[in-house]
């Protein structure tokens, strides 16, 4: 599986706008947003704004950095393919 990240600005209607699109095998699987200062001790973390397919659903985790987000995503995507 090949995962790529693309920086993008996301309109969240709030100060969180530094975003990142995550692609797996050239398919969009997640949109993440970097949390701004008004999120207190979570400022700078990456938030799963929206996941697609296996990454979709009501769970919106927060990651220390994009590497952690990528690891999480790959684990979920690979587990599905094994099944």
């Amino acid at each position, binding site marked *: 599986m090949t995962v790529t990240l693309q920086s993008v600005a996301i309109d*969240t*209607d*709030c100060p*969180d706008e530094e975003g990142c699109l995550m692609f797996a095998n050239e398919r969009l699987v997640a949109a993440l947003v970097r*949390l701004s200062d*008004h*999120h*207190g001790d*979570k400022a700078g973390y990456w*938030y799963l704004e929206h996941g697609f397919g296996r990454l979709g659903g*009501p*769970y*919106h985790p*927060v990651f220390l950095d994009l590497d952690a987000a990528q690891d999480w995503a790959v684990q979920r995507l690979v587990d599905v393919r094994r099944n």
Partner: protein
Amino acid sequence: MVTTVHLLLERHRLIRKLESIALLSHAEKQALLALPVTVEALDANTTIARDGQRSRTCCLILNGFACRFKSLSDGRRRIMSFHTPGDITDLQGLSLNVGDHSVGTLVPTTIGLIPHESLHELLQRYPSITAAFWRDTLIDGAIFRAWLVNIGRRTAQQRIAHLLCEMTMRCEAVGLSRDDGYRLPLGQSDIADALGLSPVQVNRVLYELEGCSLITSHDSSVAALDWEGLKRAGEFDPAYLHLSQEEAA
């Protein structure tokens, strides 16, 4: 002496709660105040009753704040309702033997445990109190229906505004008023778990509502600032709370 007075004042919240939805005679109020109550002071985030547990008492919130919740298999919490002083969180236990959800505190909370036997005896002697408790249970159902609509069809901002309006009115009905400085002791994770949102979404909305001067928000408490504006933001119509003695008559 001070403790006794405070306990009486806190027990009066039960009276105020019931009087906000029903008419009670002096004798009925005295009978309610005379119920045997075992008082326990609990820390925040303490489970009062567990899903699947059998109980022989009903839990009256004397002060503090509580919630009913389910825990999901992955450990996440889903809050189904909030409870103010004056609420009995588990009247259903008088008829349903096994609990189908958990009850827990959100902040340091004092509860009063009332034996089922004593309540059954009271309800047999006072049909009007039975009617009041029945009405309370029906209103519980109305609140659940309102939450279904709120969570199922409104935006994050509308959901949060609606919830804050509901809890503000329910607190004021038992004498906990914004005008006296009372703040809803709801943290962002509590609101998130109640409305099916993430804490990040809740943080964003509270930031936005504060920016519009509709609320003031601290780490673990919220208060309405612009009441009419907040009601509009949440499309809030309090009719489902049935806070009217006249309606009960």
